[in-house]
């Protein structure tokens, strides 16, 4: 019964707090970027090029995290970059999840020829090298936010499909699924009430992981200048620009890299924590 064990509720844990904290901070920063940015992220000031961050000698307090070689404020660019990173993470992650998980659920639960078709399709799809595939796609679709999102979805849905299929297959063999069918539940109804809730913890964990991956893919594409147009600051774009002046102005590279790192890490840690939270046995 609940009384005895209910008291030993697991605390959300420091991981969940830290990752959730960073992501909340990021969301707020992204939303209020126009209000809190000290400068216009695109404004160049060639007289203020390569100013170091505040803790170094010769820093200008107006540019907290320094400026790049064109004199653009690194902090402002990062704040605006967070917007794109988060939009890509949320939209691409969710779309990938919806498409991949649905196909995986169908394949794993209905089995038979449906599974055969979907599984072979996944096999073929996964044989393409992902980054090359993305670059090819962008080349065809043209650069822009939509293209990046489409590229991520197209590359990564297989990840969900594979894992969810395996999980759904395991759940489908459980006695409670048979019981539900004996009780007159339709196949579709069974999939919805018996299979899906038990696959959900895995889907949630994968979803957050995917959001992190989406941020990375967007950064990779920006790095090779194939993401969103160059007049929009992105973390990947900043890293690419910072690379050329790494010896003169390391901060242009390191700050966005650090933000990227923390964000991806937070997404994956958030997934771990949420998975436990959604699992009725661990709850």
């Amino acid at each position, binding site marked *: 019964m*609940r009384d005895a064990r209910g008291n030993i509720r697991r605390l959300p844990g420091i991981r969940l707090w830290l990752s959730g904290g960073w992501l909340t901070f990021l969301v707020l920063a992204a939303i209020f970027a126009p209000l809190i940015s000290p400068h216009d992220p695109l404004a160049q000031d060639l007289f203020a090029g390569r100013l170091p961050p505040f803790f170094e000698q010769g820093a200008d307090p107006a540019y907290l995290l320094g400026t790049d070689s064109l004199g653009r404020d690194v902090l402002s660019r990062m704040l605006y970059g967070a917007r794109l990173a988060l939009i890509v993470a949320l939209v691409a992650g969710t779309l990938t999840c919806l498409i991949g998980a649905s196909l995986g659920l169908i394949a794993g639960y209905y089995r038979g020829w449906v599974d055969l078709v979907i599984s072979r399709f996944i096999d073929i799809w996964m044989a393409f090298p992902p980054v090359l595939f993305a670059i090819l796609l962008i080349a065809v679709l043209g650069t822009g936010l939509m293209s990046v999102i489409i590229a991520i979805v197209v590359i990564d849905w297989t990840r969900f499909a594979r894992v969810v299929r395996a999980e759904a297959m395991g759940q489908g063999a459980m*006695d409670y699924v048979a*019981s539900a*069918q004996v*009780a007159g*539940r339709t196949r579709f109804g069974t999939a919805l*009430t018996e299979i899906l*809730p038990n696959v959900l913890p895995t889907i949630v964990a994968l979803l957050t992981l995917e959001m992190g991956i989406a941020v990375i893919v967007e950064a990779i594409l920006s790095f090779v200048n194939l993401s969103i147009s160059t007049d929009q600051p992105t973390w990947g774009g900043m890293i690419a620009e910072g690379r050329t002046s790494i010896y003169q102005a390391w901060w242009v590279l390191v700050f966005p890299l650090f933000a990227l790192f923390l964000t991806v890490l937070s997404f994956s840690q958030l997934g771990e924590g949420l998975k436990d939270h959604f699992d009725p046995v661990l709850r």
Partner: protein
Amino acid sequence: MSFLSIQDLTVQLKNGMPLLRHVSLDVAPGEVRALVGESGAGKSMIGKAVLGILPKAARLTGGKILLDGEDLQTLSQKARRQRIGARAALIPQDPLTALNPSRRVGPQITDRLVDILGWKRPDAEKRALELLEEVHIQSPDRVMKAYPHELSGGMRQRILIASAFAAEPKLIIADEPTTALDVTVQKQILKLIREMQQRHGTALLFVTHDLGVVSKIAQSLTVLYAGKVIEETTVKDFFAAPSHAYSKALLAATPKYTDPQGSLTPVPESVITAVEAEVAAFDEQARAGTRP
């Protein structure tokens, strides 16, 4: 008139290997028929075939299953599911995997009443509470709100029994319902199933490999070997004098407290060879179409 009548049922794996060989058996209303045999004899497969939940690799290739006089195979899939849902229920083997871990217990019972009988949810909830009381669960309202993992195996089996009887089915198939439980709980559960079966007048097909259980619950039994019916008799006759050599050996292999050493004799090689030969001859006859 029997409520469940299986005639000449044949189930094969997709590669043609037979799992059930022309099995016929009947269960009358209110009757308890035990289905015994060793592991892999096809006991559970019969139940699965009746309930329409055969595994994907197996196929029903011949014979008829009449439920309340209606041939299930002639119905559309949808109609069959409705018919089975309304008339039959399953008490599964493993109470630990038979309840959905991510849903509370209450809805899992009431779903049946809503799905099958078209009841309103408050009525179904009231009935579920009564059922839980009927299977001797204390504080049923708390159990309704619990998740399965918060309950013990015995409790879960009680819940499964309650939910099997929920929609007043005329036939219940119990697939080794006590195997996964420890001995003391086994006895209570068995008593409970018996009690519920008698009160509701349900026909019960009780799959088990435990002859001790058979003697306590059933009136008639069917012995299976390799998917073939070896003997069909009443429990009284069986325990007095089993007619088939394999049944005799099976009975001799049952452990008894009174003779702990002597009773643990395995089924002798010679009996196995004989029964294997009998199954092979039966297959030969079936193939030639000369089976009486």
